[in-house]
């Protein structure tokens, strides 16, 4: 297996649009005695590997946050958490993509609740396959960790022993399938 960090060689050349149905952007955070997960139903992303520097950019609508309880969904959209009215989208745009084998490291800026912070996502790439519909598609699985307080998402509630019920560290995950644009 050859190892390269030449991104022009590493990513399949071309422009790729997201298949949102078969893609997931989600989060995971420790709450009480276990991990709590949610995802965003309305997501958008594009991979442009046609130029000198390939770019992955994506966004998720805060109002589309999908959890198992409507009260919680409403709370997540409120100013206590994402403040969907004022900041309707979360977004990410890469500045640098490195590939080693099927491993990817993607650096860029993520914007949550209006605050942009640098972030490094790591994960894997599934190289292009021909799908049954005459298209060509590739897959990315990426994740990163952020401290939600750095984005002003600082709600908490104390446990009886005084410790916080909701962790500061949040794992963000993106499982993305891209289809080659015609």
């Amino acid at each position, binding site marked *: 297996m050859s190892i390269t960090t030449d991104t022009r060689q590493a990513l399949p050349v071309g422009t790729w649009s997201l298949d949102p149905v078969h893609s997931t952007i989600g989060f995971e955070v420790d709450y009480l005695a276990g991990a709590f997960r949610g995802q965003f139903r309305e997501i958008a992303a594009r991979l442009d590997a046609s130029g000198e520097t390939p770019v992955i950019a994506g966004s998720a609508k805060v109002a589309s946050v999908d959890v198992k309880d409507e009260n919680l*969904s409403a709370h997540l959209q409120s*100013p206590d958490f994402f403040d969907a009215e004022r900041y309707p989208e979360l977004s990410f745009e890469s500045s640098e993509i490195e590939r080693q084998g099927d491993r990817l490291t993607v650096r860029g800026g993520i914007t949550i609740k209006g605050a942009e912070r640098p972030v490094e996502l790591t994960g894997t790439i599934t190289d292009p396959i021909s799908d049954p519909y005459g298209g060509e598609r590739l897959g990315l699985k990426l994740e990163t960790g952020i401290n939600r307080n750095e984005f002003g998402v600082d709600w908490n509630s104390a446990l009886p022993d005084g410790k916080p019920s909701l962790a500061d560290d949040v794992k963000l995950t993106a499982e993305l399938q891209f289809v080659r644009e015609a």
Partner: protein
Amino acid sequence: MKVLAISGSLRSGSYNTQLLRASEELLPPEVDFVLYEGLKAVPPYDEDDDVQPAPPAVAALRGAVAEADAVLFATPEYNSSIPGSLKNALDWVSRPPATNALRNKPVAVVGASTGAFGAVWAQAELRKVLAAIGARVVDGEVAVGHAPTRFDERGRLEDESLQEQLQETIEALLDEAESRSLILA
């Protein structure tokens, strides 16, 4: 712009209602001030009754909140927390969760008590409840302790620092309402 004022104390001589009236004097003339007087008529929350049409007192409260650009609450402290009648009213307004009338509404909390601490615990509880409902809770605390001694004959706060805190809290509330009106425009 319209500011709805809700007092957590129902009695006619309430210091918290007096504090809201003192707030009215600090508002710019172009701001409408509406003191809500229907809290006592709100029935105990019962999900069986939470149907359309809502009980009249509930519909009136939800409508008043929906029409306001901002809501100013003044709460006393009952047993280290907010009065049951106020919590009950907020529980009604909080339904349905995703579209309730307080969602994203700029709100501020002040409080008065006959004791030394000016209902600070109740104010903290009320801010927590309002945030959980989805309101836009502005910073600022006005804690009027020893309330019977704090107002002059015209009902204004005599203490200058309290008056300044009240002014700052109201300005923060109006700023938040103004900022929201720009988003919604």
